[in-house]
């Protein structure tokens, strides 16, 4: 085949994919709006998995506390887009008499930046650790962040403790508020769909960043560190800086996802950021194929979509078969989840869609 024809095919494939992605929420919306919601959550997980993939997949640093950065992003947005700070701090209230209403274009980078800062804070003391030891320390870090969020309501109420932060404003772009159905050029677009497009845009941005980083001097340095740290050092790579960079970049994607989660839900509490969440995101990376971007995306979509699908299917099927619900969907979910992970580790230890050369 000539190069031009190949190029043509690529363009056509790309356009088809774009149309499919654009039409997806409308198709899902036909079945039910809850499915658009599931899509949105799945996109958030894709962002998280891609961020964790930089740390675990590219640089080979096992991180079990990754959800902390998601929490940081979520609380940064939550605090800056809700009346919580103005209610509790007089100085802030006098500074912003109309409340904090920051632009989303400021909030997303801010969430990313602060999460990246926490990434460096975590990374710095763990530079000498690898493997299991690193996993334990990062696990502790994740729990510490959650406990802080849970307890920082006294003596000064910063996080509102276990009650979490309420009344978080939805995203607002160019005067369009993502809170109800809006009329865009004569088309009625529900808020859920608007979020879908925003999340999709952010996800695509993150994918491009990840792909370009992987095929660059930085990406090669990360892979070198993952394969053999001593050799990497001896080749002139400043492993300390490269590891911190991986932590910071990975965390920043988590921060963006967190900020979006916060805006989407309108409510955040420490409960959403437990150890189990960290493990689920790690499972997505491992299931898909560590270090392989398409694999990681697949893993995230499967593991994010699967429990929801189960929830929708299990109850009606059991009612139809047995007349009553024998096994709760939640229990079945954990069962299948665990079994899948065991089977994948046994038969496809490199993941469902690993990189192959």
């Amino acid at each position, binding site marked *: 085949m000539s190069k031009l024809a190949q190029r043509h095919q690529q363009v056509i494939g790309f356009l088809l994919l774009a149309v499919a992605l654009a039409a997806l929420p409308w198709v899902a919306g036909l079945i039910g709006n809850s499915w658009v919601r599931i899509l949105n959550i799945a996109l958030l997980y894709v962002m998280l998995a891609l961020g964790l993939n930089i740390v675990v997949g590219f640089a080979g640093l096992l991180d079990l506390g990754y959800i902390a950065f998601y929490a940081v992003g979520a609380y940064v947005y939550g605090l800056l887009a809700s009346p919580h700070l103005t209610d509790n701090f007089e100085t802030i209230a006098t500074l912003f008499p109309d409340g904090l209403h920051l632009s989303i274009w400021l909030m997303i980078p801010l969430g990313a930046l602060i999460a990246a800062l926490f990434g460096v804070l975590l990374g710095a003391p763990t530079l000498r650790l690898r493997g299991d030891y690193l996993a334990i320390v990062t696990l502790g870090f994740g729990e510490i962040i959650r406990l802080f969020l849970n307890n920082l309501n006294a003596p000064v109420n910063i996080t509102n403790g276990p009650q979490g932060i309420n009344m978080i404003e939805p995203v607002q772009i160019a005067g369009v508020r993502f809170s109800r159905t809006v009329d865009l050029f004569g088309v009625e677009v529900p808020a859920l769909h608007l979020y879908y497009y925003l999340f999709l845009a952010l996800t695509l941005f993150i994918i491009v960043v990840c792909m*370009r980083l992987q095929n*660059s001097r930085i990406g090669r340095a990360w892979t*070198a560190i993952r*394969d053999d740290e001593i050799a990497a050092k001896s*080749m002139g790579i400043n492993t300390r800086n490269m590891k911190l960079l991986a932590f910071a*970049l990975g965390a920043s994607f988590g921060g963006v996802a967190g900020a979006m989660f916060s805006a989407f839900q309108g409510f955040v509490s420490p409960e959403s950021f437990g150890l189990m969440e960290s493990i689920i995101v790690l499972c997505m990376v491992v299931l898909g194929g560590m270090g392989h971007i398409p694999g990681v995306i697949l893993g995230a979509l499967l593991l994010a979509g699967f429990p929801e699908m189960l929830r929708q299917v299990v109850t009606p099927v059991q009612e139809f078969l047995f007349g009553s619900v024998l096994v709760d969907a939640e229990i079945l979910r954990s069962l299948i989840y665990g079994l899948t992970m065991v089977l994948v580790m046994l038969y496809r230890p490199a993941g469902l869609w690993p990189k192959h050369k």
Partner: protein
Amino acid sequence: MNIPLFSATHLKKSFGGITAVDDVSLSVQPGQVVGLIGPNGAGKTTCFNLITGLYAPDEGQFEFKGKTYKPASPHRVAQMGLARTFQNIRLFKSMTALENVAVGMHGKTRQGVLGAVLRTPAQRREEKRVHQQALKWLDYVGIGAYSNHLAGQLSYGDQRRLEIARALASEPALLALDEPAAGMNATEKLKLRELLLRIRQDGTSILLIEHDVKLVMGICDEVIVLDYGKVIAQGTSTQVQQSPAVIEAYLGGLHHG
């Protein structure tokens, strides 16, 4: 007297009660090939690890290109122009041969995150140069045909060559090779010898740890013999071969037997 390209004086390193390197001094003149030989466990690799910053020395001074340096971090030593290979091959196994060499160029390239994400013209130029140079180095050591093979899939001899290519990619002034001929057959050794001579001819000095006495004696301008962490002989290959201390270390003295 010429200023040596590299010198290490009075190196000392002990692990627990064992003194692995005891008051070793060595130097390399520009354009020289210096051999470091000795029986197993004599402290040769420890010397290398001290020089390249993997171990912190208990005592000793280091000088490179007329400047003293503290080998505190391996990446600084590498960026200074002192590249090395490893006795037990340490390639990046999940990367292709070409990518391995590209990693060797890390210190010679500059592009960071922004360049990579934005694909700036400068970044693309640099990537192109990295690609071309890496291919050049693979050809230089004679494995250009395997540029897209994973490093772990290459034959043992080729892996050793790839390590040399990766080290050469940083354009070092001094190349430190830790047993490059280990596990090679006679033909491969002959090719290696040619390669080493060519490297020297092209202006890179070599510090060579090697067990193959024939190889060492054939190409080294100077040979240093270590035993139990101490220098027991030093000089040209002929001088060293006639030293009674060396003969005893290698063949065992009468009192042993």
